[in-house]
């Protein structure tokens, strides 16, 4: 069953925390991965691959470039779950 937006956000925050050590409470929808959370491109890709596995979705390379904020990622994953 598809997860809600809040559930995806919570799961994504855990992945961000595992990769970078950033507190899960800091991972909010309006935060930019690079500017606010200081996540570099390699960590971003690690989070993306782990998110694919966790949420059972495909996030193509060309789509990763559009995921500027946590909200962008949550929205993409939520809709990709079908």
């Amino acid at each position, binding site marked *: 069953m598809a997860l809600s937006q809040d559930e995806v956000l919570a799961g994504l925050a855990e992945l961000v925390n595992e990769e970078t050590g950033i507190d899960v409470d800091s991972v909010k929808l309006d935060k930019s991965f690079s500017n606010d959370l200081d996540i570099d491109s*390699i960590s971003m890709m690690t989070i993306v691959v782990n998110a694919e596995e966790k949420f059972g979705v495909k996030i193509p390379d060309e789509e990763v470039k559009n995921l500027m904020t946590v909200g962008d990622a949550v929205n993409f994953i939520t809709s990709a779950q079908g």
Partner: protein
Amino acid sequence: MTEPQLKQFESVPFSRIYSLGAARGNLVVTNDEVAGPIDSSDEWIRQRTGIITRRRADANQSLMDMAVSASRQAISRAGIEPSEIGAVIFSTISHPYQTPSAATQLTELIGASPAPAFDISAACAGYCYGIAQADSLVRSGVAKFVLVVGAERLSDFIDPTDRSISFLLGDGAGAAIVGPSDYPGIAKTVWGSDGAHWSSVSMTASLLELRDGSASWPTLRQDGQTVFRWAVWEMAKVAQQALDAAGVRADQLSALVTHQANIRIIDEMVKQLKLPDTVAVARDIVYTGNTSAASVPLAMDQLLVDGVVKSGGLALQIGFGAGLAFAAQVVVLP
């Protein structure tokens, strides 16, 4: 009248790597020296790549100088004469002539003429491609000893303002002598290519565009995110396939020697392969940088020179890069 029966080469059962040779650029280039044009810092580069220094050739040190030096060391360590070499395989992407090959010049310079000699272009996978070919040439009986060289002078093809790859790159040469063996010393190679990602690591322009004035001197570029995903998650699968093809478990390895592209690729691959702590992991990139075709033999040689691993142990070596191209095999350490 009877039909003539052709004579074919008679095969031998096994091959192994007899020795390695190594040569690095004479210059030790610090992060501070490359950080300015990319608006970066020593700390940023260390954190994101693991590199503390990269070795680069000085003005008087050519690609061929490094290749000759590494080759002579490998020949000497193998205890053979140059005249016994039956083929020379030279992997490079930075030989500055379209033709003739670097291999024929090297072969002449080391006294191995008239051995057949040719270049291969498989970028960072090139050395492992070369070992695969050398293994085939030796076991098929075509050549008794094969010299495999991976050599690069990548500093000729960098743009100091490029943030994608230039600051990672170094210069060096690694060489190996492959020959017949009483035991299996080079396991089945798992290799392949993925031309769908042809442009993920490439030159900024072709020589034709340079000639026509529509482009300046071509330099290397990469799409870091795409390459990182492929290098870790796809190559971890290839590494596991190479272990399976060899009939070896990860905990039976002495060493993992990956292409030295970025410390984070190496660390993530270790995680994906669930390697136990008993396996030494080559991290030559920290002081040598990314030397493309030279990186695997340089990194393996360093483990041996430092006494981290012993001759006779098993190492999984894997090269991957532009093409995209990849090759992996388990070998017995020389």
